[in-house]
């Protein structure tokens, strides 16, 4: 059975290593597909693919994983994103994916030091 590739993923775009990401249904946290075909919050656990065919299989798999599960394993909005390899580790290429991996680039809430006005 051929797996439909989402509109956003065109064959020509697949020029580099990729991984699959999604948001966890329960809290929206960023998760990555592992080589055990489970979801992990750690990008270091992600499964990397370099090949178009394998990427398609990934999408097929994630559709299954995101559609058929219940409870804490459910995810929302799976897609492929480009990574580069650094000593075997996956590093996202785009700013958006870097921020999804590391969290907001600013300190916020309780971690933001209360600022005193300049007087």
């Amino acid at each position: 059975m051929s797996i439909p590739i989402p509109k956003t993923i065109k064959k020509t775009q697949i020029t580099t290593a990729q991984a699959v990401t999604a948001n966890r249904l329960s809290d929206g946290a960023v998760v990555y597909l592992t080589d055990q075909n489970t979801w992990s919050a750690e990008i270091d656990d992600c499964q990397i693919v370099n090949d178009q065919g394998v990427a398609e299989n990934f999408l097929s798999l994630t559709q299954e994983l995101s559609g058929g599960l219940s409870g804490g394993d459910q995810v929302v909005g799976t897609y492929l994103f480009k990574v580069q390899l650094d000593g075997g580790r996956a590093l996202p290429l785009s700013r958006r994916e870097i921020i999804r991996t590391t969290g907001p680039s600013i300190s916020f809430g309780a971690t933001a030091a209360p600022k005193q006005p300049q007087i």
Partner: protein
Amino acid sequence: MCRYDEFDHAFVAERVDQFRGQVARRVAGDLSEDEFKPLRLMNGLYLQLHAYMLRVAIPYGTLSATQMRMLAHIARTYDRGYGHFTTRQNIQYNWPALADVPDILDDLASVEMHAIQTSGNCIRNTTADPLAGVAADEIEDPRVYAEIIRQWSTLHPEFSFLPRKFKIAVTGAPNDRAVTRGHDIGLRMHRDLQGNPSFEVMVGGGQGRTPILAKTIRNFLPVEHLLSYLEAILRVYNQLGRRDNIYKARIKILVQSEGEAAFAEQVEAEWQQIHNNAPGALDLPEAERNRIAAYFAPHGYADLPKQSPILDAALDTDPAFAAWVESNVQGHKQPGYAIATISLKPHGGIPGDASAGQMDAVADLAERYGFDEIRITYKQNLVLPDVPKADLHTVWQELVDLGLGTANAGRISDIIACPGLDYCNLANARSIPIAQRISERFTDLQREREIGDLSLNISGCINACAHHHVANIGILGVDKKGVEYYQITLGGVADENAAIGAVIGPAFEEHQIADAVETIVDVYLNERETDERFIETYQRVGPQPFKEKLYATD
């Protein structure tokens, strides 16, 4: 203040129950995400980059101390201890867990608040002048009409699936603090030739990729006809607005394509039809207006002298306080009282963010030094609307201790910034760190005072949630092959003289943008004539001197 009647209570409670069931079915796998998404959006729940985001409406930007404490409680209990106030008088929580959202909505309902119609193609939270009811220049309190619109538009069956989202803003004063020309419908109160309060009706304003200022289609609409006229506008839009292209679906595109005169004619014809079909059915009888106006009745103000010797002495002896009064305090219509803006823009801070502790403390201040009210402004600040002048110094000292005493309202570091790529799923670039970097350049109070009134807004994408098009200096984040760039517009104005800014030239890289803003400020200071504000200088000299310095090749 907004008060729920029995219908509101029952409806909101029922909606929370329904959503609780929907969440349970989604988690159990009985609802797919495609089925669930419109349901969660109807309850203000978005999925952003790292988490869900819940947007809660603050009707016409007015909160009681009890409501503010509830917002703090939610931030502390279900989120990460803070909330983000937006230009549309909402608060956004950035980290709620899905399973907690029904409980949050229950908590909100207990203080007569909700998140309904903060998303989707419906009539959103109607915003109003944050100084409503206390501004010295006001004709009538616009919240009366905003409340009437709230009741009319909540779950309006005909207008729940419009071609696109729909935003209304109301002001009761000639000085526009609600950006009425930036909305789908803007209502600005004037006196008609007989001296009666009436609304100037402006239609088709909006930001986004096609920024347009709303056009006046009626100069004087008698207030009793407000709802029938709004109904006529919405009907024309609902029938003719484009549903085939999301980029052309807003009413601004319809008004533009039809032409404002033709659009106005269609509205008048529809209005006539409404009158013919059911004469007077949508009129607002005076008794009903008075009943709602009683929700916003003037407080029991004390009979205070106009001048306060305590305030005068503090102004003489405490220059930092005097600077705060100069920028953050405005005249009140009641002698002896003042309106105090609490800046949520500490230098280097995150525009619009407040911690749970700060929210609680502001609620305390509103009780001790006012009549239990807090306002949320378009500029993402808070307002204590009724501070006795004699208490201003004490209030400011407490604000300083809370990290809320920055003297920068209306100044260059009073930056409006959207969440941008740090949170937002639609973003192209970050807004917050850029705002922080720019505001850190202007920590010198003397310099900020010298620069004077200047608006600077930063949006992380062309959706323009931070209204950068109508800022004196607008900054738009764009993505160029995965790298964040920032495009500058100059000359925008958000008040009654609203104007759309013009792009000054090629975009700047992230590390260049704060320098570019400094250059713009330097050109202004160099070019300005006595007492000219930034916008006046820009309008007089035009973009050329700014361009020359910004893009000098040496």
